[in-house]
């Protein structure tokens, strides 16, 4: 076995806010080998690679380069040591040509000498890109090649690719794989391939390291493993014990029967048909999704983030354009403005609470009526807001959703994350909507607040609301949902019930295996 190019030993990373991202990880990169790094959101993949590429210092542990301990203070240091990384979000200047971007990355002038050496490199590696077109006019796959060329022009021995296929078409993916194989065989480069897609791990890697919650849970040779085994390692076999009553007991009707009953007896509250939503970076983020949402059920959408969930939710909620059909109680609502949807009974708990959910400099009271400022309850004569009513409303919210706030006149930014979220949830649910779209409703909250929000969702469900729950937390989706859909690259790989999937299957669906 060849000597490893780079070795990470007992790496621990604790972020400033106390989050433990890595709990003593060992990791090796060997020459002429493609090493897969597999894990869910928050498993620590990105943190680990940021440390190897000089973007973050480890809290403890060390890096050995060819057996010698090194400290990397910046990406430049890492490149000097022959370690290059291609980030998921490209570090490219959009209106620069490929040549200019490479020049910027290498610190060389964009002259004929650089052009000649890049052309030679393109010849050797087979990675062709037009050098004189602004990269914003290139296809995403070509932009990725520019990033790779930028790194390779520095003669790296270690190449790290973070979710490189998430933006590629199948053909482009195939081209990338061919290139990687050549790079490994002909140049002896050590390659780290980060992904959550099982099929790709099996296809391209030689060895796989699986991370879960900051720990290495397995390291296997690719040819000796299977998708099932990897999926089990990735998502874990055990359920978190939270001491909650099982969902089934709360309504006394078995989930399965309720679902079947709902479908047969009632009209769906929300029908989505063949919805297509464009992505910001070009192409489609949502590629023709259809589903029905019934009163009295929670439909969970599980999946690794960035598979089109955000775009799906924003299109349904009137914040983004989409094609297809979305019907609320039989009425077409696609393209209606958010406030209109709100009046029709669709509530939206937004994924990004600082972008859409709250106006941080506004008071708790002012935030409590955002979107309802013109409802008859709060709007008096002469365009005056009825502050008495507003305050009464805040008092109700604070009581009903046990929001801890210094006062109704305190700015929203003075509340903790959990209480900010309770304020949003309370505001959105207080007008008795028929359909609730909850996007990542517990993200970033402490356990108590997250539990509280989950209880509210169940309560709403039991009160007959139709709830669409989008969450990257698989446990949360499986625990709360009556039905669950798995989203992967803009489509559903499966719609089923939590009872019908074990975690292994769930991992397969999230990794792109069709159900």
């Amino acid at each position: 076995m060849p000597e490893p190019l780079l070795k990470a030993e007992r790496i621990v990373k604790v972020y400033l806010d106390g989050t433990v991202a890595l709990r003593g990880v060992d990791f090796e990169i060997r020459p002429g080998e493609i090493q897969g790094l597999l894990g869910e959101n928050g498993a620590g993949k990105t943190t680990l690679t940021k440390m190897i590429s000089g973007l973050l210092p480890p809290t403890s542990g060390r890096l050995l380069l060819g057996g010698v301990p090194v400290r990397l203070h910046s990406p430049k240091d890492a490149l000097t040591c022959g370690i290059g990384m291609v980030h998921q979000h490209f570090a490219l200047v959009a209106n620069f040509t490929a040549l200019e971007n490479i020049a910027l990355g290498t610190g060389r002038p964009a002259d004929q000498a650089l052009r000649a050496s890049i052309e030679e490199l393109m010849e050797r590696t087979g990675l062709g890109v037009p050098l004189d077109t602004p990269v914003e006019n290139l296809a995403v796959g070509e932009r990725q090649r520019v990033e790779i060329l930028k790194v390779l022009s520095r003669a790296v021995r270690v190449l790290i690719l973070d979710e490189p296929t998430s933006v590629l078409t199948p053909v482009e993916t195939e081209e990338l794989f061919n290139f990687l194989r050549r790079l490994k065989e002909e140049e002896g480069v050590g390659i780290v391939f980060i992904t959550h897609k099982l099929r790709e791990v099996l296809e391209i890697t030689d060895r796989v390291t699986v991370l879960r919650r900051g720990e290495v849970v397995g390291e296997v040779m690719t040819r000796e493993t299977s998708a099932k085994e990897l999926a089990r390692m990735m998502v874990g076999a055990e359920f978190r014990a939270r001491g909650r009553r099982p969902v089934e007991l709360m309504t006394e009707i078995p989930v399965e029967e309720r679902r079947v009953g709902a479908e047969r007896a009632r009209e769906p509250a929300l029908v989505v048909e063949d919805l297509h939503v464009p992505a910001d970076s070009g192409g489609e983020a949502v590629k023709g999704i259809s589903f029905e949402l019934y009163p009295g059920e929670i439909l969970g959408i599980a999946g690794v983030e960035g598979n089109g969930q955000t775009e799906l939710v924003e299109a349904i909620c009137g914040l983004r354009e989409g094609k297809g059909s979305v019907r609320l109680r039989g009425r077409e609502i696609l393209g209606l403005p958010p406030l209109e949807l709100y009046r029709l009974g669709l509530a939206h708990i937004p994924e990004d609470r600082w972008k859409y959910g709250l106006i941080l400099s506004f008071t708790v009271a002012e935030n409590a009526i955002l979107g309802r400022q013109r409802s008859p309850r709060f709007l008096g004569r002469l365009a005056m807001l009825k502050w008495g009513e507003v305050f009464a409303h805040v008092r109700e919210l604070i009581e009903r959703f046990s929001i801890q706030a210094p006062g109704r006149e305190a700015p929203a930014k003075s509340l903790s994350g959990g209480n900010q979220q309770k304020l949003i949830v309370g505001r959105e649910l207080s007008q008795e909507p028929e359909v609730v779209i909850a996007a990542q409703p517990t993200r970033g909250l402490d356990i108590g607040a997250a539990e509280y929000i989950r209880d509210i969702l169940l309560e709403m469900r039991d009160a007959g609301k139709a709830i669409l729950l989008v969450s990257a937390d698989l446990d949360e989706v499986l625990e709360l949902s009556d039905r669950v859909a798995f989203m992967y690259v803009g489509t559903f790989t499966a719609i089923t019930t939590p009872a019908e999937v074990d975690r292994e299957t769930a991992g397969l669906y999230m990794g792109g295996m069709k159900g």
Partner: protein
Amino acid sequence: MTLDHFWSILFLSLHAMVPITLTAAGEVVGERAGLFNIGLEGILLLSAFTGALGAEAGGWPLGLLVGIGTGAVVGLFFGLINAYWKGNQLITGVGINLFALGFVAFGLRALGTPAFHDVPRDVRLPAIQTPVGGLSPIVFLALVMPFAIHWFLNRTRAGLWVRAVGENPEAADVAGVPVELVRLLATTFGAALAGLAGAYMSISWMGAVTKEMAAGRGFIALATVVFSGLRPILTLAGGFIFGFFDSLATWIANIPGVKEAIPWQFVSMIPYIVTLLVVTGVIGRVRFPKALGVPYRRE
């Protein structure tokens, strides 16, 4: 229209073009680096005044130097406040304009020439004599400068850095470019060119200093930057268009017959109306740097 008229209009236009083209070309560099300076109007006024004082003290070479230096110092302040201390660029610009308005009016009154400060003929920048009239040497500088800036931005490594920090400071930072320093130097350079433009107005073109001599040219230069789509060479075209309408106004107002038919006040409005129309026409087709006006903070 006779040939004489043509030459006279051309020369008037060229002279009126200079401050706008120089200021706009400099501001292109600043905006490409991500800083938006609405204090150019104030810089023009300030350096017109200090440039005149410099010329009176040590002849036109010193005058030009003092003008450029004044612009550079103001630009340095603007860059410090905005590149390093992440201040509000619009408010900083307003502050510069108010300060200039106060400082120049104060200085003019302190010198005992509150309404009109004449720059003596012998310290003015000598014009190049041609068969059809005098032409300021700065005109040639203004004709060359946009090409030089074009070359700098597109052919040098420093120019690459300037464009990178305005478009994607994160990517530049990752590549080891000192984002704040590049922004500071770019905006200082732009302000220094505005300083040169101001000195040109007082010691070459108009030969005088008044409180209102900037007359919105700093803002017209901003509009020219928009018109040019941040391409330096097009600031020549933009500057010439506004220079033409500016001088057309002066010219028309002196033609017998026209003077009576159209009040001079309406003729004087033309450059501003043209500016507005042009900006309205090109807006939406212009691609501004993505990080223009946005302070850069790591993480």
